């Protein structure tokens, strides 16, 4: 019985990480309808910025995260301006292929510049503490709590930005109808830049947390979590912020249960199978609403 609860805890902590990444994913998709494949790789860049801030500048985790968020916000805006903006009016396939291109560019440029070696955060970067319950049967670490709290806090913040701020209102307008928003005097370019800046900053925060959590980072670290987070975003209904959070938890718990009671070797396969099933039977996700295609 304790094992089951421990597995649920494992799932929630893994799920918070997916949720963190999925938030940015879902936001960018919701507003400009682009699967930003590079999101996981922006997360990786964030992790590296955080790593160098800690390892070279010797700052703590929180300032490192701020640096990473600023750097990646800028990176996100640059990527959008250079690669995605010219394609805003072309086919979705062209935009998707470009996003894949950007993703690989970030991965391999990082390998080129920084070697493919795995790096580890200096020991003691994060003062670790374990809490044991029920005669050591249940374990919770402060890292788990940190990630969970961060994910919830960022979700609330994001929800607030989108629902209650000026820029959030512009974002929602752009997501409804880009042309109409433009006609209503909304600066669409600026809004999209902000979207990318916020989404990428979220990715960077996630990256630093993943780095601290697992203590290791490498140039290809963004691929699998990025894909999993995408699955999470789809499960929750892509474009819906609380949905991404829930999707993340669903994925995390699912994986924990597959590893705990089945075989961890099929964990990734199960994740993708769920994705395909969701896409087939409820493509709008658990929280999504159906909308018909306009003819």
């Amino acid at each position: 019985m304790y094992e089951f609860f421990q597995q649920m805890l494992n799932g929630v902590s893994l799920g918070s990480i997916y949720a963190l990444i999925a938030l940015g994913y879902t936001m960018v998709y919701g507003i400009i309808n682009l699967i930003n494949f590079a999101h996981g790789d922006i997360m990786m860049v964030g992790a590296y910025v955080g790593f160098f801030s800690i390892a070279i500048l010797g700052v703590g985790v929180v300032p490192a995260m701020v640096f990473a968020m600023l750097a990646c916000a800028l990176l996100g805006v640059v990527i959008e301006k250079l690669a995605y903006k010219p394609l805003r009016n072309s086919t979705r396939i062209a935009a998707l292929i470009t996003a894949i291109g950007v993703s690989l560019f970030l991965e391999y440029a990082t390998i080129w510049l920084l070697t493919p070696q795995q790096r580890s955060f200096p020991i003691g970067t994060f003062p670790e503490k374990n809490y044991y319950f029920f005669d050591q049967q249940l374990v919770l670490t402060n890292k788990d709590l940190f990630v969970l709290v961060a994910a919830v806090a960022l979700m609330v913040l994001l929800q607030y930005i989108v629902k209650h701020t000026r820029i959030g209102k512009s974002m929602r307008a752009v997501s409804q109808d880009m042309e109409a928003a433009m006609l209503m005097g909304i600066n669409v370019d600026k809004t999209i830049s902000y979207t990318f800046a916020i989404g990428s900053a979220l990715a960077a925060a996630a990256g630093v947390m993943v780095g601290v959590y697992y203590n290791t980072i490498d140039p290809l670290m963004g691929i699998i979590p990025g894909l999993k987070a995408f699955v999470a975003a789809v499960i929750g209904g892509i474009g819906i912020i609380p949905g991404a959070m829930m999707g993340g938890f669903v994925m995390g718990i699912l994986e924990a249960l597959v590893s705990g009671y089945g075989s961890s070797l099929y964990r990734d396969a199960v994740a993708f199978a769920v994705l395909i099933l969701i896409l087939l039977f409820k493509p709008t996700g658990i929280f999504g609403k159906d909308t018909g295609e306009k003819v």
Partner: protein
Amino acid sequence: MVTKKLNWTHLTISTVTLAVIFTVFQYLIARQLIDVYYQINLFMLGINIILAVSLNLINGFTGQLSLGHAGFMSVGAYTAAVMTTKLGYSFAIGIGAGCLAAALMGLLIGIPTLRLKGDYLAIATLGFGEIVRVVFLNIEYVGGASGLIGIPQLTTWTWLFVSVVVTVVVIQNIVNSSYGRACISVRENEVAAELMGVNTTKYKVLAFTVGALFAGLAGGLYAHYFFIIQPGTFGFFRSFDILVMVVLGGLGSTTGAIVAAAFLTVLSAGLQSFPEVRMVLYSVVLIITMIYRPQGLMGNKELSFRTFQRIRGDKNGPVVNREPV
């Protein structure tokens, strides 16, 4: 535009050209005038052409973005290799089984997933590719992660050459027929196609199945040239490699796919010692192509006898498609 009659002149020229190419390389290989390294690249080139041309049917002509082509390739490779290595069948039967297995997989995957549109389809096929990889990874019978070893090297130049020619001819003949036009109409405007009586799902599945069949062929040839196949060889990066060829060459141009496959194979061999540079270059090429020339280098134009006639200023030659701007 399709010719109304079989053009014997063109057929003769094609046959002679192909026969010459075949014989020259056959001679060079048999006499060992080109060494192992160039042979490997020659075979890789042929396999890449099959992959690019077959993916082009799905991505380029039918307009369905598939990121799982390496998955179909691996199904073909494993099936063919198991048939020859474990079950003792002949190479021809192995290759045939590989093609069929891949085509069947294309059909099975195609029917449900093709209800999805655009980027969702892309993600679903990517997921499919990963699932196939994980499954092979966990089957001990085919060697698990370390792969199936000890596959005899049965892919000869003849096999490869004939396979490439058959792939190109079959796909070109499909594309230049009413069935191919139905596929293209799906790409151009799915709603309109459906309303003009084209069963779009059927043609998407057709493209997927035929594309998968030839990917399986490429897989079988690959397995029987490189002695060993591992699940990792058929990951997302290989799907991506093939996609780059198709995108660069022109979505919807078989000639373009061939030229790009050749160019990128040679480039990749040249950048052997700088794998990161190769990938950085690929990704930049992909982004720039999409921004400045989303239809690819060749667009949907084909290099054919008609093109030559036009270059010569042949007055009888019909006007070739002008490029979409």
